[in-house]
């Protein structure tokens, strides 16, 4: 599909074009979904509509079927997506496997896998964490042993988001044991989840939704041609794909949405008459604005063609903690209604106070927990001894 050079447009021009089409084409029943992580079938029509338009994959180069957006335009894409309340689509193929293959994959891998991500034939999940390898990912133990043209994989992954609706998993495995440097000997491979020996067990989260899973591997045969990059060198590969996308861990969309819900509830329940509440609300509002400014500061670096440093972790910490403070305040405003699990009626609408409160528990844990982010800032930014 021939696409224009989006990066030649001004951000505002691009924003206008993107917004107009998305607003006209994203089905209204999928907007502002309660569920954070809908499964593929729930959002398939939106996925296919984007694919058909050629807009499913914002950063892939156009030769691979992406839009080829630079970081600045990508930010616009993400902002408008959030503003219009489009649902999250299963995006591990687009955001993780795709970029990895484009950078490190063989021509055959690219030709084979990229189109199937765009068509939705392959739905990917991310198999990194293990029961004993969370924050300390390098201690992972799922093993892959060479056997002729194949590898034999044994072990277990956990917290694998949407594994139950995926058919391919991007797997980090141990191919060599090196006790001195555990980052050595890790390999990235592409694994077909329909291979015999792969078993998926969904895990219910705090909201009762099964959106992450355990994935077990028992003598699973993986063709050696499914290894990405060099054997034993997977750690650097896996770490490198995040790149400028780390900025999005601090994108203000979740707290922004939550603050709107707080405002709706507070208005309906008369909380704005209370000066103590007004003061707390004003703080949250300004926190959100200031998060926007900080986000903008990093976005500007990208716009000017720069690279993000370790500092960007500050966005993730502030954003996820602000999200929690907003949902906590929402429960305070709910008063005795904070006893309900179900959404709270507000005029003809509903505010999902508890849903948001529970949801806000996760972002301080995933994507590198906030403690780990603080460790990184302490070392890499403040250079503490």
């Amino acid at each position, binding site marked *: 599909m021939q696409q224009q050079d989006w990066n030649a447009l001004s951000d505002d021009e691009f924003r206008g074009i993107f917004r107009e089409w998305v607003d006209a084409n994203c089905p209204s029943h999928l907007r502002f979904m309660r569920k954070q992580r809908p499964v593929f079938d729930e959002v398939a029509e939106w996925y296919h509509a984007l694919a058909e338009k050629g807009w499913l994959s914002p950063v892939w180069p156009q030769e691979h079927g992406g839009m080829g957006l630079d970081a600045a335009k990508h930010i616009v894409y993400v902002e408008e997506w959030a503003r219009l309340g489009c649902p999250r689509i299963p995006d591990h193929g687009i955001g993780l496997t795709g970029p990895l293959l484009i950078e490190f994959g063989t021509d055959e891998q690219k030709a084979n896998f990229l189109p199937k991500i765009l068509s939705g034939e392959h739905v990917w999940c991310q198999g990194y964490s293990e029961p004993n390898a969370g924050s300390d990912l390098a201690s992972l133990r799922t093993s892959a042993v060479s056997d002729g043209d194949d590898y034999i994989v044994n072990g277990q992954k956990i917290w694998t988001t949407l594994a139950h609706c995926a058919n391919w998993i991007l797997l980090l495995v141990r191919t060599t044991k090196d006790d001195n440097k555990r980052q050595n000997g890790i390999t990235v491979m592409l694994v077909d989840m329909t291979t015999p020996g792969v078993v998926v067990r969904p895990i219910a989260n*705090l909201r009762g939704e099964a959106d992450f899973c355990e994935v077990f591997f028992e003598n699973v045969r993986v063709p050696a041609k499914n290894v990405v990059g060099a054997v034993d060198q997977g750690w650097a590969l896996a770490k490198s794909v995040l790149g400028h996308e780390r900025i999005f861990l601090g994108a203000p969309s979740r707290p922004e949405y939550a603050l709107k819900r707080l405002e709706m509830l507070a208005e309906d329940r008369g909380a704005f008459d209370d000066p103590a509440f007004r003061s707390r609300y004003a703080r949250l509002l300004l926190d959100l604005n200031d998060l926007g400014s900080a986000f903008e500061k990093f976005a500007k670096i990208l716009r000017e063609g720069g690279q993000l440093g370790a500092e960007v972790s500050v966005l993730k910490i502030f954003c996820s903690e602000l999200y929690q403070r907003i949902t906590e305040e929402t429960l305070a405003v709910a008063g005795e209604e904070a006893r309900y699990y179900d959404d709270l009626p507000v005029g003809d609408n509903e505010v999902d106070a508890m849903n948001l409160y529970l949801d806000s528990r996760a972002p301080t*844990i995933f994507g590198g927990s906030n403690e780990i982010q603080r460790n990184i800032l302490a070392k890499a930014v403040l250079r503490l001894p």
Partner: protein
Amino acid sequence: MPLISLDDDDNTLGMLRESANALAERIDGAQVMRSRRAGKSDLDRSVWTAMAEAGWLGLLLPEELGGLQLGSRELVVLCESLGRGLLTEPYVQLAVFSGALLMGADHGANTSALAGGLVDGSRIVTTLWQTERGARAELKATEKDGEVLLNGCAGLVSAAQSASDYLVLAQSDGDSVLVHLPADTGGIGVSLRASVDDAQLGSVDLDGCSVPSGNVLARGHKVETALVRAIETNRLAIAAELAGIASKALEATVDYTRERIQFGKPIASFQAIQHRLVDMWSDAEFACSAVTDATEKLGEPDSAAASQAVLAAKARAGDAAIGITRRAIQLHGAMGFTDECDIGLYMKRAINLNATLGQPEELRLQYLATERAA
């Protein structure tokens, strides 16, 4: 780990604690919550029966009403254990709240029968008095020709579906009345909404429900006095349960972080985590002392000071339980975000209790108002 500590010369409290802990051992409270949620149920009968058999449902009721005639000291020790053991049936709403109203009613045949059923578990007695948002409900009683007609809407009703009997706090000609309404009376409509702690909260619609005038259990000043007492006793009981949750959630997190190895060490060996755990411990410690203080003050003559101490204790214990369970989830990592790990259930229970009968800020403001008025 922090506990509510009261003088216990004859070891009655110790024995009570032991029997509560024994029951909590026998019953997997977390599993009960999950199956209650799956069945959309508002009460687990088997746990309720076990509580009845242990004599707890009549803990505060006088002997003439079939109770054990024990006091606040025993109540807080029991509720603390319920909190620790995650036994989340609506003990405070039914046994303590409805119980307190019956204690304050005229002790006629009707009251005795209700109290007897409440104590032995054969009756589920819940009270209609709040709106869906927690204000005082406007329920109307019309008395004429030997009958009472009840109208209005109540919310936040525990065990609304399971109830065999409702106590209705209504207004009759500008006068408060406490009316016994059997659940099989015509004109009652019950709808349920899930509560955060995996039970159901009911809204109960009364549409011209008719009962004989003998069902008026108390009226006027008596009703209001009983209500004030019921609220205060409930707040104390809830504060104790919250303190139990706070302390148990801390304990579970200390255990977990000692065992969880990352980077070749127990994560509890990282100072960032140690400081967090120490702060949690300190919060639990303060919660337990505040509840201890309120309980002791209730045994002293100055009732105003006691009332204030109860407000303070519930605010303190609520903040502690909420803050501790939140941090506990964080320290459990992704495990804490699952339904399989019990720590999330402690958080959910804490949210419900913290929001019941006043969140901390409201209670502190009430405390201040009383203080300034004095």
